């Protein structure tokens, strides 16, 4: 059975589907060939990402709004796998060097930057970005507002950020995540209240993504506490 494509879709877009599938498979094959030539583990790990791009091309080739919703989990899976494997690689190399007692810093935050602009600009920039992010809402807005909060944290590092703020922020992120889930559930359970669900999801996601910056603050806290002592 041939699934009818709506008339509003231009025939050019429809004819692009088969070339896009071949492109995706070809990208994957090129990635596999590159992996076959490489002998160093770190290069292999980086090259597997190319195969992941091939996967994204194939999912994106479908071209509907559902495909757009499927790209995001695909991307997240790619990221999660590459993170897991790189952790594994690091732990293996540390075992080989027998440096198990030493810890490796995740983000080397304490940079000694004593510039005047870092005293004055952060508040202004953070407020502008957070307000603009709230206006955008959703995932994009969360990223924008998160960038604002992150900029504030990173530039205030030299003076020290109180740790309660960051623990509170990351706890709030967890609670807000539930809001997003409830909003998502409303779509399925009670579709009549879609407006409420949409706003719960949009602003839950906005606050959640923005506060994820708080987690980086929590990790960074250990660093600058040690630096100050």
């Amino acid at each position, binding site marked *: *059975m*041939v*699934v009818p494509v709506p008339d509003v879709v231009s025939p050019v877009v429809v004819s692009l*589907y088969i070339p896009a*599938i071949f492109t*995706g*498979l070809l990208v*994957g094959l090129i*990635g*596999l060939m590159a*992996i076959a030539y490489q002998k160093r*583990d770190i290069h*292999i*790990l980086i090259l*597997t990402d190319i*195969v*992941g791009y*091939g*996967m994204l091309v*194939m*999912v994106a*080739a*479908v071209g509907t709004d*559902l*495909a757009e919703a*499927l790209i995001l*989990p*695909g991307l997240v*899976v*790619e990221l*999660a*796998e*590459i993170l*897991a*494997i790189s*952790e*594994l*690689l690091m*732990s*293996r190399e540390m*075992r*080989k060097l027998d440096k198990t007692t030493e810890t490796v810093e995740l983000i080397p935050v304490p940079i000694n930057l004593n510039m005047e602009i870092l005293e004055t600009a952060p508040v202004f920039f953070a407020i502008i970005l957070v307000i603009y992010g709230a206006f955008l809402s959703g995932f994009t807005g969360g990223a924008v507002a998160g960038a604002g909060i992150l900029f504030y944290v990173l530039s205030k590092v030299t003076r020290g950020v109180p740790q309660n703020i960051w623990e509170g922020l990351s706890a709030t992120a967890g609670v807000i995540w539930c809001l997003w889930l409830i909003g998502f559930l409303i*779509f*399925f*359970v009670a*579709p009549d209240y879609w407006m409420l669900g949409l706003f719960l999801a949009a602003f839950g996601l906005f606050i959640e993504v923005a506060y994820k910056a708080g987690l980086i603050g929590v990790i960074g806290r250990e660093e600058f506490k040690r630096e100050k002592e």
Partner: protein
Amino acid sequence: MDITTLGGQLLGIIPLGDIVLYVTTFNLFMFAAALVFTVLIAMSKTEKQVEAEFGTLNDREKKVGKDEFKVRRFLSIICGLATAGAMITGDLFNFTLFVTLIGIVNIGIVSAVKEVDVLDSAFQYGIIAMLATLPLFGGAALILAATGTLSMFEIVNIPSTAMMIFGSILLFIGVAGESGVAPFFATKAEMFRTAGSPFLVIIHLSSLLVIVRAIEVILLISKPF
């Protein structure tokens, strides 16, 4: 292939908007089996490997530290839940996502072991699992493009086309790579050779259950008989 031919009695459907979950005897049994095993694993403690040393009276003991034990137990429970989810889900893309989650968690379970050889083979398995996402998601996307839906309850009623069969072959290659069966088993078998047995068993069990369910899914999509 009908749902009832493969899965026994159709016990009911759970309509959630576009996604219609269906519950058959087969799905329900596999789901319950995965959950029971997860509960058993959540309550168990790890084994200790003790070997007698040759020529002396000493024993060589391999223990799992408390932190490592906690992380492993957590990841094993996640792996069990993901397996149970893959058994019961009626959505093709959710199935692929559960399968990849199992792959990631399998790497996580062995990521903190002390043996370099085991870490080496886990790295190789991880590379294969990452490469397998291309046929896995690609196959699901092809089936979505060919049928216009991801709900298996709907796909069953659509006669299979060449594109759907190609998609289901890709899907099977993806599941095989992700769960480490037939052509890709060599590295995965090496992953078990470390202490901490009951948590390592879930790696094995999840791939067994997933492959059974994957065959059901592929038969539902490609309808060869």
